[in-house]
């Protein structure tokens, strides 16, 4: 992916200055506290958009844990990405209360509209579509989140209206 390459120094396999700085800052923000790994990974992902593979040894060394442990944590949790997402992340709830309001149909509509499946990103890098299992908006199903903004009672029409202005 392009964004992935942008984080790397073309002259070696490691991280470019920007990425390295952000990782160092993430470590500095949490390293003093007990059991900081998960919080460090959150901070890295918030700053860089994902957790680059090249960040793993840097974090492991700084926190004095094995690379395998850091990698194990990154892969255990659905939230952490190992490659960049599109510019806008659309999360569609798939859990029971939203199923009771036919979220499967909304999901199918979204997939058709964007021409991608769940866990995929459009070729122009604009949208990433993801399933999510409950957003706590279950009395106003089907629920959806776009870039951290929550929506309720989403219909195919309101879905189209909401994504259209996103560049």
């Amino acid at each position, binding site marked *: 992916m392009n964004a992935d390459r942008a984080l790397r120094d073309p002259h070696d396999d490691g991280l470019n200055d920007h990425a390295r700085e952000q990782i160092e800052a993430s470590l500095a923000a949490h390293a003093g506290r007990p059991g900081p790994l998960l919080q460090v990974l959150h901070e890295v992902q918030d700053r860089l958009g994902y957790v680059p593979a090249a960040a793993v040894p840097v974090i492991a060394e700084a926190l004095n844990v094995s690379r395998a442990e850091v990698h194990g944590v990154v892969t255990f949790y659905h*939230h952490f990405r190992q490659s960049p997402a599109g510019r806008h992340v659309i999360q569609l709830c798939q859990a029971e*209360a*939203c199923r*009771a309001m036919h979220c499967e149909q909304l999901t199918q509509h979204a997939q058709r509209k964007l021409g991608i499946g769940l866990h995929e990103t459009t070729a122009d890098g604009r949208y990433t579509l993801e399933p999510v*299992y*409950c957003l706590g908006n*279950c009395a*106003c199903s089907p629920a959806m989140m776009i870039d951290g903004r929550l929506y309720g009672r989403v219909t195919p029409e309101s879905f189209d209206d909401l994504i259209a202005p996103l560049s």
Partner: protein
Amino acid sequence: MSIKVYVPRDATALSLGAGPVATAIQDEAQRRGLDIQLIRNGSRGLFWLEPLVEVETEGGRHAYGPVTAADVTSLFESRFFEGRGHRLHQGLTEEIKELRSQQRLTFARVGVTDPVSVEDYVAHGGYEGLTRALAMPPAAIVQAVTDSGLRGRGGAAFPTGIKWKTVLDQPPQQKYVTCNADEGDSGTFADRMLMEGDPLMLIEGMTIAGIAVGATQGYIYLRVEYPHAHRALNEAIAAARAAGYLGPNILGSGRQFELEVRLGAGAYICGEETSMLESLEGRRGEVRVRPPLPAIKGLFGQPTVVNNVISLASVPVILARGAEFYKNFGTGRSRGTIPLQLAGNIKRGGLIERAFGLTLRELIYDYGGGSASGRPIRAVQVGGPLGAYIPASQFDTAIDYEALSNIGALLGHGGVVAFDDTVDMAGMARYAMEFCAKESCGKCTPCRIGSTRGVELMDRVIANIDRERNLQLVEELCDTLLHGSLCGLGGMTPFPVQSALKYFPEDFRKSVQ
């Protein structure tokens, strides 16, 4: 004097457009030179009326809803700021039928106050419980919680006081209070609403727990799907600290308590308490083998209280008004009130806090008004993705721990999800297996491998391939999961599957199109 106008900051209200409504009200007031004070409150939990705008008048608070930004000009033209009539006028908020009949103890302030104002909190009875607790010996605080009959609201319904006593009885050392705010169950949002609408009550409850058991540090484990709650909690913690209610010397008592919010990362299993502790320590959320109990060896190997948001938020009232007061609500061994969450295909969804004992039918029809689609309600799932499906023939069951357990169901965290007659229960049973497969922590074979096999079996059942034999295999697999799982994810996935099979057998035998 400025006019107080309330527009919720609750995530559901925001999801329905409360943000633009708030902006429009501010703009319109400015245009008209009206002095209004806009307060971003929590939600009253009447979600069919959200965004619900309230205005304070001498005669009480008037409600208008559901308001869109386009309605704002006409609201001003009708002088809503004096509580006058309008197409969206719902009368006095407290008189709205679905709210008036509730018994709100834990949610007494949610929607009423400014969630992050310590001043407002105290003006509405906040911190009375902590003030009392500070004057009591620790054992007496624990005794009050035991006497109240409070049982854990996270799902397992274990008596809270007994858990606290175990931690108190450990010799003095670093101890922790942890709050389980992972709220992963579909159909539940009580924790979220409380954290967004009255976070100081959770903070007060955790502080009381810390003083009771001798813990100086607390952690709130919050799911990452709740960014609005995250902001509200952090604002409230900062406000409490600034006002001397958190920190090294609480209210000059010499007692210490600190609080930190830590975010989860999208793993349902991390709501299981030992998995949550692993995750709080920054590791993979793999379930721990018990014993030792977390109360003896919990976070970082130290004695730890683990409680759900609602359990902890119930404590201030118990301390402020006494164990007897709390215990006098409820029925049998289900004491106090329960914030029920009505969701799914329902006309009037939301939060209903009542003493235990309301029937499912009263909840679904009197409060909920039936399905959103207008079709008959065929089933409800109670207690999240691991809870049983209950058919309409059992809607007269009372909502309390024992009555539900008598029909093979469980209350869990109090979520009730309604389905109309278009639901395909075979599809829901398949989904239960799929969810287990996705969220398994991987420690036990039946859960990790068996659930994937369960999905395949259900696919064959649905496609009518060797149907009866595959249904038999699903039953056998459920048996293996029930008996061969370390925790409730594997151990309870059979509940939705078996109840669907038992009450809706026809859905598993449909002809294939």
